């Protein structure tokens, strides 16, 4: 449960990535990449500053260096989260590198604070998997690195210098137990009396990114915009008045017990409930697709710099991307792989679909929405 709660809170608001590109201080970056490419040009470069596999002398050299280190420290990766359990096992089997998974249930902020506390120690995390807000607030802690498939990743999903790259994400969705409530085909269905005491939003939008994205989704579905969420707040107010919205934090336990038969949450987290509740369905409203992505980055002070870089190469290989897809998440290279035909079609077919383009909210839009929520959310649902 804590996993669902804490990890939920870390989900990326993809909207913030747009400004991150502008906000990440460019001067510092040019410096670091210049120095690292300089050292990279020397043969058998230091893994700590290598910005690509070539800088290390090619993939084989990177692999050899990583095997020599023998260990990779990861943090906050629950085994049942986006298929990380299988990914870690596959990586260990493929390269013979031991993966030490620390605090799998921790949240993004804890990943950063742990890296700071353990700085210089062999137990410090080598790589991060972070939510957007935390990821973009700590860019000075990452080592720039470009994986082999870096150029294929759409520019809005990566830092131009490779300090961070979005790894996987999902769409905001409405999950529901079809044995307890009628099928949902429109957001207004939620106002029906059959839904009384049944709808939960994953977290307060002023606390949790998932809850915030849920509000933006409803806003689009109700004809509002990403920055003007008035309509969404009014809608949640109506839900509350009708007694349909319950202020319960949905977790796999509440879903299993039936306490929260309708959950507004990321589609891949919703999809995970099907294992325990076979009648669980996931619905994404048409023309109201909010996408959220996680951020992958290498700790600049990684105790195993080569293994950290090999891990990135593995994650952004077709194999690694398909593992995430199998876990119900949408890997960042999915479009590219669909074109190339390397995508796991069976897993891709299981993802919920909807009409319309996934929406990306800019930082200004996010800020405007937050400001309105700060003044009005408690009033509407309190």
């Amino acid at each position, binding site marked *: 449960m804590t996993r669902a709660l804490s990890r939920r809170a870390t989900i990326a608001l993809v909207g913030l990535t747009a400004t991150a590109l502008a906000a990440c201080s460019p001067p510092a970056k040019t410096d670091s990449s210049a120095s690292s490419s300089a050292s990279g040009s020397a043969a058998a470069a230091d893994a700590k500053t290598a910005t690509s596999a070539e800088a290390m002398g090619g993939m084989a050299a990177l692999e050899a260096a990583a095997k020599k280190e023998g260990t990779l420290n990861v943090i906050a990766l629950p085994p049942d989260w986006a298929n990380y359990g299988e990914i870690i096992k596959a990586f260990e089997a493929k390269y013979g590198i031991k993966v030490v998974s620390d605090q799998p249930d921790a949240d993004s902020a804890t990943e950063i604070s742990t890296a700071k506390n353990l700085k210089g120690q062999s137990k410090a995390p080598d790589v991060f998997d972070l939510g957007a807000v935390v990821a973009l607030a700590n860019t000075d802690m990452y080592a720039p690195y470009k994986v082999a498939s870096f150029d294929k990743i759409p520019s809005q999903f990566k830092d131009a210098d490779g300090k961070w790259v979005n790894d996987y994400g999902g769409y905001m969705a409405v999950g529901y137990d079809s044995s307890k409530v009628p099928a949902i085909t429109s957001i207004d269905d939620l106002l029906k009396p059959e839904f009384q005491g049944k709808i939960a939003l994953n977290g*307060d939008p*002023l606390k949790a990114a998932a809850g915030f994205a849920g509000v933006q989704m409803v806003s689009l579905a109700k004809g509002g915009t990403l920055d003007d969420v008035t309509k969404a707040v009014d809608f949640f107010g109506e839900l509350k008045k009708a007694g349909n919205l319950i*202020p319960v934090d949905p977790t796999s336990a509440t879903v299993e017990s039936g306490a929260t038969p309708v959950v507004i949450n990321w589609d891949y987290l919703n999809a995970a409930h099907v294992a325990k509740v076979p009648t669980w369905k996931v619905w994404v409203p048409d023309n109201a697709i909010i996408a959220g992505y996680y951020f992958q980055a290498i700790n600049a002070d990684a105790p195993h710099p080569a293994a950290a870089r090999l891990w990135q190469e593995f994650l952004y290989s077709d194999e690694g991307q398909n593992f995430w897809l199998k876990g119900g998440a949408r890997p960042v290279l999915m479009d590219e792989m669909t074109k190339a035909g390397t995508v796991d079609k069976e897993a891709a077919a299981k993802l919920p679909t909807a009409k319309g383009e996934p929406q990306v909210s800019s930082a200004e839009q996010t800020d405007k929405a937050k400001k309105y929520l700060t003044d009005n959310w408690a009033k509407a649902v*309190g």
Partner: protein
Amino acid sequence: MADRQRLGAPSGRRPGGALLGVVPFFLYTTAFLLLPTLIVIVGAFLDGDSRFTLGNLEALRSPAVTTALWQSVALSVVTAVIGAAVGGVLAYAVSTAPAGSLVRRFVTSLCGVLAQFGGVALAFAFMATFGLQGFVNLWLVDLGINTGGGAWLYTWDKGLTLVYLIFQIPLMVIVFLPAVDGLRPQWREASETLGGTTWTYWRRVGGPILLPPFVGSLLLLFTNAFSAYATAAALISQGSPLVPLQIAASLNSETVLGQENVGKAMALAMVLVVAVVMAIYAWIDRRSSRWLQR
């Protein structure tokens, strides 16, 4: 003076030893009371870069915070008044049972447990009973009674009032019982001998004696509810309707960063409210100890 000499150690070493004995207490209060309070007070006046600012206090004027503050006070007052009234009557009823009797021992130990029965455990007990899947709720639904899905439990006004009373009433019994026990039967006999009725006794003797400890207990109940966090947090996850929940949101929010010091300003506001209440309590406590030997 004579007493002290009799009790004192032969040499002049006793004051030093006594002081040494108090050291752990001072260390404890420093670490867990003074230091946190100081951090809160200082932090309330600092911005993200540790520069002096009044911005955090300004932020207290936002409607979300003022509403939460008002609702916290309202919830605390209501549960304190109801808790004090019901608990006071209960305490009197218990005091009529002879000391050491089974009823009395049972009620006081039960109250001792229930007064500490707060937080997550209490919240889940209520969820299991009256919540969405709670057995009482399902039973009422089976009988055809519309409970609104049990959603009332998850509101700060209806739900939390009831839940808080579960620990407020027993706490009142515990803190008020010694005061009621302090009423001497002789006072009543004296009143009756002089021709007083029951009403006269309560109006002229019992009431005035019990009023200070009653108000004191009431204030204690107020602060008890005002500072409660875990129970509310376990039940309510939307809207942060109370100040402790607002403070938590300012500390662990993933969407609105850099609000930690606004949280400290809110904590400072709570400290001030409690300080005022405790000052009144101390004054009343002094008055009430004049009559009651405890």
